């Protein structure tokens, strides 16, 4: 039973972690190689890895998606430790609109233009920081969604993930707050009810005992008196 509980807890933490890892912004140091646009089929379960723009028909099964091809600096530990090696990385470039995840991105065409403008060759690289969310998976053909790109002078530029810092501080505050609210609710609302229920039970059983006593005494009056 204890192992089952632990397992469920680990599962819950993993699920929340996966959702956060998918949807929170991450920063890559990249060099844009090219951009392209390709027709994508949207009729199987991998649909979840594509955006759902507002102005798109719900029954549409394929549409054009813009992509940004880059060479990316590899990292360790979720991007905190930079490595010298590079790898190919392709981002999709789609509006998220007003739906989940809440990036409120509407400037896909502008971003594509900025990425095109930053194109460079290995001989004369122009490095940039690409903000994105999502996962690249070659087997599922899923691509991270590019959110914004900004040029940097050197590929070793220090990136501070401000949004994630605020997000996790807020998350901790929210969890502490919910625990405090729950404790307060329990102390002020549930416990008094339980106490008074306990009191009422005590009173009721005392009352029953007394009535029993009275009944016994009354019955006693019917007993024959001492025979003298």
């Amino acid at each position, binding site marked *: 039973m204890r192992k089952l509980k632990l397992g469920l807890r680990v599962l819950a933490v993993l699920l929340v972690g996966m959702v956060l890892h998918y949807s929170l912004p991450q920063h890559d140091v990249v060099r844009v190689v090219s951009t392209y646009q390709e027709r994508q089929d949207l009729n199987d379960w991998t649909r979840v890895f594509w955006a759902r723009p*507002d102005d798109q028909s719900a029954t549409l099964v394929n549409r054009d998606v813009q992509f940004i091809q880059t060479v990316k600096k590899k990292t360790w530990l979720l991007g905190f430790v930079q490595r010298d090696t590079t790898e190919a990385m392709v981002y999709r470039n789609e509006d998220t*609109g*007003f*739906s989940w995840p*809440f*990036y*409120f*991105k*509407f*400037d896909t065409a*502008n971003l594509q233009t*900025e990425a095109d403008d930053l194109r460079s060759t290995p001989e004369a690289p122009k490095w940039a920081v690409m903000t994105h969310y999502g996962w690249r998976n070659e087997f599922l053909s899923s691509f991270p969604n590019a*959110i*914004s790109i900004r040029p940097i002078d050197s590929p070793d530029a220090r990136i501070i993930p401000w949004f994630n810092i605020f997000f996790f501080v807020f998350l901790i505050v929210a969890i502490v707050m919910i625990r*405090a*609210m729950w404790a*307060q*609710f329990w102390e*002020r609302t549930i416990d008094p009810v339980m106490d008074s229920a306990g009191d009422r039970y005590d009173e009721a059983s005392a009352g029953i005992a007394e009535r029993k006593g009275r009944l016994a005494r009354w019955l006693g009056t019917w007993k024959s008196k001492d025979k003298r």
Partner: protein
Amino acid sequence: MGFIRLVVFGFIALSIIYLSLSVYFRSVRRENLEDDWAEANPDSSDKAARDVFVADGMASYHGSIRAKLVGLVYVVPTIVVSVIVFMTNAN
């Protein structure tokens, strides 16, 4: 369509948070008032006076700025969303 959905569900979610927070802060305030009374009158068993004291305290809490600050639950997310919309789409 997405905008309307966000506004409707956002409003519902924020209302739930607003109600829970205002109930919580009222409850904490009432508890503090009861503790104050117990400290000031350690051996008083005058329940009516205690109720009047707590009711007065709650009345002045309801009129205070602190009670109204819970309304920020609606204001702050609206500002945050506006800032994110601007930051994402401005060049």
